[in-house]
């Protein structure tokens, strides 16, 4: 298991190198002079040229790339062009917001999605099932930047019970988390439902019934743990997606998380920030995926034995 974990971590390195190279190339193809952006439209041409030299922007592309990689290994992701603060500390200060948002939405998603999925599968084709599956589809289809706005309109503007912007604090995260969770609830409900439906047809569930276990015991003890294995996987994927992809929700609710930081960095051509941010998200993504795989092995002894 340890060996496997180690191997997986090693496997992440080339991916991260690739991500770095990809982003690096993209940024260099992007029109816009970072020196000019830093200094603003009023600064003189000489100042801009001087800054370009100072920042090493006039160097060879590959020189810049390898210099960056070298620094990144030591944990130095450079300094943001726009704030001159270390990119890493910028990311660290934004990350708690994103983390909180992501954990809250995943919590909501699991708390709603799993029970909905279970009930739906037990009462397949019932009214409840039909409503839940249709709603799940709506949840997947609804754009967060729309549902978020509607929630703000309802709960902040009309009812005045929740703050419209999600800065710090639990209360102000409720609405963004709910908005973001809609899709995850849907995904988890559907996954739980289909997984349950598949598992319930399995022989060992019939075995459990033949042992004289009651329906609840059969579901809770036998069907559910097996059905949840793929649900955990998809939850992990969702979580990874939320960590990096909560951009729109963060924008709608003015949450200063990683996603918004990154989008504004992209818009301001803050190269080190974009570079570091994407790398950060890629690392988080890879770690979450690794975590999911390990979790998978932890939950399913069959998988675990493959890794030995």
């Amino acid at each position, binding site marked *: 298991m340890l060996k496997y974990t180690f191997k997986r971590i090693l496997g992440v390195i080339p991916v991260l190198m690739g991500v770095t190279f990809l982003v690096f190339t*993209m940024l260099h193809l992007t029109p816009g002079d970072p020196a000019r952006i830093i200094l603003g439209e009023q600064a003189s041409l000489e100042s801009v040229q001087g800054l370009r030299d100072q920042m090493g922007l006039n160097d060879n592309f590959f020189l810049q790339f390898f210099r960056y990689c070298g620094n990144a290994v030591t944990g130095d992701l450079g300094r943001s062009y726009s704030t001159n603060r270390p990119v890493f500390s910028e990311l660290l200060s934004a990350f708690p917001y994103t983390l909180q948002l992501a954990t809250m939405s995943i919590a909501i998603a699991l708390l709603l999605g799993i029970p909905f999925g279970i009930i739906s599968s037990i009462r397949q084709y019932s009214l409840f099932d039909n409503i839940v599956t249709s709603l799940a*589809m709506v949840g997947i*289809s609804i*754009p967060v930047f*729309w549902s978020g706005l509607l929630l703000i309109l309802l709960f902040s503007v009309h009812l005045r019970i929740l703050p419209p912007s999600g800065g710090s604090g639990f209360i102000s995260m409720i609405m963004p988390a709910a908005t973001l969770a809609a899709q995850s609830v849907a995904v988890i409900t559907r996954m739980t439902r289909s997984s349950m439906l598949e598992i319930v047809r399995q022989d060992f569930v019939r075995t459990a019934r033949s042992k004289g276990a009651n329906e609840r015991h059969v579901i809770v003890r036998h069907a559910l743990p097996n059905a949840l294995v793929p649900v955990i996987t998809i939850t992990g994927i969702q979580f990874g*997606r939320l960590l*990096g*992809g909560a951009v729109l929700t963060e924008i709608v609710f003015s949450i200063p998380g990683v996603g918004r930081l990154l989008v504004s960095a992209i818009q301001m051509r803050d190269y080190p920030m974009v570079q570091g941010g994407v790398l950060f*998200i890629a690392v988080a*993504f890879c770690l979450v995926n690794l975590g999911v795989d390990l979790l998978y092995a932890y939950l399913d002894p069959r998988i675990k034995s493959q890794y030995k």
Partner: protein
Amino acid sequence: MSTKINFIPFIKRLSRSKTAFFGLIFLCFMLLVAIFAGVIAPYAFSEQDLLNTLATPSMEHPFGTDEFGRDVLSRIIYGSRISLLVGFISVAIALVFGGFLGAVAGFFGGRTDHYIMRVMDVFLAIPQLLFAISVAATLGPGLGNLMLAVGVAAIPQYARVVRAGVLSIRSLDYIEASTASGGGKFYIIFKHILPNCAAPLIVQSTLGVAFAILVAAGLSFIGLGLEPPNPEWGAMLSTGREYIRDFPHLTIFPGLAIMLTILSLNFLGDGLRDVLDPKLRR
């Protein structure tokens, strides 16, 4: 998994699911709206009336007017062209490139497979929306760029689906027979292998169009979409946001358009999966 699709029973089976049927009908409706936008729309999408801005819905303007007095209904109608175009073309881009890469990777296996899939891993390590944002920012605004951004970001998914399909078919007898009888490799890929990946690809593509429309709307929402005065649903929503308290119609109608279109595609995709994927057939 042979998937010679017979059209008539296929539609019949599809329409057994009410939701899939709804999806199909609504999608056809939107396609018609998009094609005949010029005929249906009561106004031109850029026609301004600075004396009648931000009007609430009325007989004259069923969905009201925006901040330049442009008819919201007409803009939504013309906007369907953009959304559907971006949705379909970007998926086509992803399908062509991803499909090709996946087929090559799966068919040749070995090193080719290894390298192609490692590159795909790199793409997959960046969340799709974020990747699309980065590409869109690199390319700048414009219809083509928007399609490209959304499409490129989706390539790895299709590569994976096709590769998995190819792997499951590659070892089958008739492929071996075809190889033995001297068919060229690409001939075999195109003649035998790809058609047999059709079912998962059709499902994936239908859901993919939905996701592409969603991503495109998201990009427009943060200002990485088309140049004005092009009517784009996400951008309309973004503008409406400023007026949401007084003139919610600017937010509600484009939002509904996005949601219903995506919803119908998702319903359809789900129905298709039920019909096409024998494993899940009820």
